Structure formats: C-alpha cells, structure tokens
C-alpha cells in the first residue's frame, strides 16, 4: 500500500525555544501509506516535530511540506489534511462521546457527521456508550475516542503521539490492532512511541532522534546496519575445529562457539548459508538446525543512544 510519492518532506527542520534547540536540522521524508515511527528518549523532540508537522508550532528554521502544503504558509490547509492524537486525549469530560465528536466534526466541517460518528464509534466499540459523559470513561476508552476524533474527517496523515502510553495490555492491544487496520487501509501514520516492540511491529520505517536525526530506515535494515546479520548453527556439539572451518570464508566474520551453537556474522545469509552448511557437514558437524540471531529494535535503539551518550561524554 506504500506509494512512492512522499506525503511529508522536511528539510533541515529546526525548532528552538529560547536557548534550547528542541529539533535540530531534521531532514526526512515519509511516503504515502507508510507507518512511520519517531523514536527517541524524553525531550528528544518527537512531540515538537509532530507539533510542527501538525502546523501547531512555527519552525525556527528549515522547511516542511505536509500533503503538498508548506508549513508556516498553508497551515489551515494542512490542518484539514491531518488528524492528531496528542499525548493527552484532551476530551471534554462533561460532554458525551457523541457530543465530543460532533463538536470536532463541526470544527473540521465534516458534512456527513452523524454517519462518521457512527462509523468510528462502532469500529472502536463505543457506539453503545455514545450518550455517556466522557468523564465516566476508562483510560482505554478515552484513548479510543480520541483516535475516533482524529479520524472523523478522514485525514490523509494521522499523527499518533504515544497512542498506547499508560494503557493496560488489553487496551494497548486493541489500539495496536486498530492501527494495523488503518495501515491496511493505506493511511499514512506518524507514530511516536517509547514502546519499541510496538514500533518494530507496526512501522515500515523508523527515525531515531535525539534533537537531531540519529538513524532512519526500516527496523530490519537498522538491525542489519548496526549489528550485521548473525547466523546461528545449532549442532550436536560445537568445537574450535568447526569454528576454524567457518573462519576460512571471506564473507564470514566474528565466529564464536557458545555451548552447542556456533554464531557467525554473514554478509548475505540467503546466498551464503548453503555453502557454510556444506562445509560444516563435511567437517563432521552434526547439524540440527540453522537460524538467524534476531536482534530487537530495542537493541538498535540502545546502541544508538549509547553512542550519543559516549559522544556527549567525549565532548565533556
């Protein structure tokens, strides 16, 4: 569903609050239909970036286009094209779910408002509670209602700022599944989250930022770039002779035996594994099975953040 035309393009996007630079020279592009993750520690500038792209904050420098409109020049047009779920749901507690949505529908100028309200309240399982004041809703229900609000006008780009933050596992799962459904519809979603497993599962690409851009790619590609690809050979018994067998290949590095396994960094496992398997078997190995050591996105993130910290210590 990803289209190769970019829907968001930023060029050296910068935001300063007085002396503090919250976002520094951020350059990236997001394709139509892509689920794009913004990852980073607290204060990394994720929310500030989202707020700039949602035409809520004026950039201090650089440029950005959202859905073909320029930030700072066509802000009203941008607001019509986007939906925002902020960090806090921001709902009117004394109004019912339906009244909340009807109000925001009026703000967006939604014409078939009653139908849209019904569509999203039903999709999110809140239709039967539509007349109840939002103040009586659980955190998960409020979050779902806030997502419905963000989708009411069928935006081209949906910004979800920490959509599962503070939710119990069941509510988080529901929200994640809903995001997956939206992804299936081909909607462009910008997701900020601290939940790296969630980002790994939902995002086509992620940008790791800490004021500035640290890395940008698909989660799998980031893993490969940072850790390479490691193949795990499960054997009846691992020994140094077999390690030596693998070390002879020029495309293999970092070979080590751990218990009854041999781990080896391989440039292109799909092409090179058969040759390695043959060599091991010929060398007397009793091979049980072969797999790839899968690094988590969390490992990538921690590696990148560790490098930032080392860099900062170095400067100090």
């Amino acid at each position, binding site marked *: 569903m990803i289209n190769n035309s970019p829907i968001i393009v930023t060029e050296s996007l910068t935001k300063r609050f007085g002396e503090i630079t919250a976002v520094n020279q951020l350059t990236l592009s997001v394709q139509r239909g892509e689920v794009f993750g913004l990852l980073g520690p607290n204060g990394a500038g994720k929310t500030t970036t989202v707020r700039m792209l949602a035409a809520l904050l004026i950039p201090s420098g650089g440029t950005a286009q959202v859905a073909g409109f320029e930030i700072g020049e066509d802000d009203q047009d941008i*607001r*019509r094209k986007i939906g925002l779920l902020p960090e806090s749901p921001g709902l009117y507690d004394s109004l019912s779910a339906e009244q909340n949505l*009807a109000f925001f529908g009026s703000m967006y100028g939604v014409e078939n408002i009653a139908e849209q309200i019904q569509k999203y309240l039903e999709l999110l399982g809140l239709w039967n509670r539509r007349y109840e004041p939002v103040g009586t809703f659980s955190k998960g229900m409020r979050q779902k209602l806030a997502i419905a609000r963000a989708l009411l006008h069928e935006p081209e780009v949906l910004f979800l700022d920490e959509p599962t933050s503070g939710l119990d596992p069941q509510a988080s799962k529901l929200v994640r599944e809903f995001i997956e459904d939206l992804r299936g519809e081909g909607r462009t979603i910008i997701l900020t989250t601290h939940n790296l497993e969630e980002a790994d599962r939902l995002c086509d690409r992620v940008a790791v930022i800490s004021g500035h851009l640290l890395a940008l790619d698909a989660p799998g590609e980031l893993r490969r770039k940072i850790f390479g690809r490691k193949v795990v050979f499960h054997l009846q018994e691992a020994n140094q002779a077999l390690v030596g067998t693998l070390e002879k290949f020029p495309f293999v590095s970092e070979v080590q035996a751990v218990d009854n396994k041999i781990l080896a960094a391989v440039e292109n496992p799909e092409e090179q594994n058969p040759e390695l398997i043959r060599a091991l078997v010929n060398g007397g190995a009793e091979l049980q099975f072969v797999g790839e050591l899968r690094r988590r996105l969390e490992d990538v993130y921690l590696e990148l953040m560790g490098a930032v910290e080392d860099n900062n210590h170095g400067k100090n």
Partner: protein
Amino acid sequence: MERIKAIIIKEWREVFKNKFVLFTVSFLPLMITILPLFVLYFAGGSDDFASISAADLPPQFEQLCGDVIGGDCMLYYIVTQFILLFMMVPVIIPMTIASYSIVGEKTTRTLEPLLATPVTTVEILVGKGLAGVIPAVLTTWIGYLVYAAGAYLMVSNTAVVSKLFDPLWMMAIFLVGPLLSLMGVSIAVMISSRVNDPRVAEQISGIFVLPVVGLFIGQMTGMILVNETFILWLAAALLVLDIVLFYFAVQVFQRETILSRWK
C-alpha cells in the same frame, strides 16, 4: 459561522454544568434586580420623600432630574443609582464564564486537539467570547426590564418611571452593557492564560469591576454626573478599549504561545 455556533453551544453545555458558574450567573443578576425593587418598595411609599424640596438636594441633581423635582427627583436619583449597579452584571458574568472555559481547557488539555483543527484563533475567541457575552447581555436586559416593570408598579409618579426609558439609560443598558461584556471577556482571556485556577482568574478579573463601582460611587458623591454625553463618551472609550483588548487577547491566544508557554 458554523464553527462559532458549535463553540458557543459546546461552551454552554460544558460551563453551565459547573454549579459555581451557574450560581454566579443566576444569583448576581437576581440580587441586583430584587434588592433595588425591595428598596423602591419602601422608598416609594415613604412620606419623607414628599417633604423634600429642590433646595434640599445637591445642585447636580437639578441637571440629572430635569423637570422632575423635589422628592421625585430624589426617588429618580435612587432609581438611576441602581441602574448603574446593573452595569456590573455584563462585566462579571462573561468574566466568570470565560475564566472557567479557558482555564478549564488548559487543565484538561483540550486546547491542543482543538488548535489542530482548521478553526482560526479569531473563531475560537469570538465563540468563547459570545458564549460569555450572550448570557451576560441577555441577563442584564431581562433584569433591567424586570426592574423597570417593578419600578412602574411601585413608584406612583409616572414621570420618574418614564425616565427609566430615556435614551440615556437605554444607551447605558443596550450599548454600554454589551461593550462592558466584551471588555470582561478579553480581560478574562488574558488573565486565564497566566493562571491555572479559574477562581484565581475570576478574582483577578474582578478588579476590573472597580471602574463600574467607581461610576456608582462617583454619581453618589456628585463627582460624576452620568448624563447622555457621559454615556456616549463612555461607549466610545469602551469601543476603543474593546478593540485594543481583543487585539491583545488574540496575541495571547496564539497556538505557539498556548502550547509552549501556557502552563
């Protein structure tokens, strides 16, 4: 226009569920309407007024009363003093409503999703402003009509009562009243941007009722004579003040300011 209408309805749905706001909006006009009628009831039937001659009254009363003389002039003076009290209603009510509305949005963090919609700052402020001004102005007008009807029943001299419908007081109620309301709303918006408790916003805004109280005291002590010229000047000054205050309210209510500085 649809957005402004939606904001007004939303504000009323929200704010009037607050018992304190409801109490302030209903109790103050009720008191300001009933108390003068109570006073008039006793004053209108009092023999003391009949014995008052023109010489007993301060010189500025002659200007104020025109062809109404003696005890009737005194009665008219009392009646008009209370009209000045009515001027407090269009200031206090919108301040209360706007304070609760804006500080409420700050504390529940509902402004961010609202600002992310295509609604303009002016639409938000006009919507929120009218949500405070409309009930305030209507309450003032209704209160005034009830007061005038009560005065008609309690004061025997029709010349005194008919003066309540002089252009002077018509302008005061129907022109100065709404202008005072607009002033109250703009002030409440600016103060609400700096505080996190609607009661604090309301109390600080309350200082701005003092000029109206000053008007009341000024006429009572003879320092100010509230006549048509004075009301026209007051209306002109308020119009300019309203424009200036609304400009500053719009400046305070910038999206960037709200998200980055309103705490």
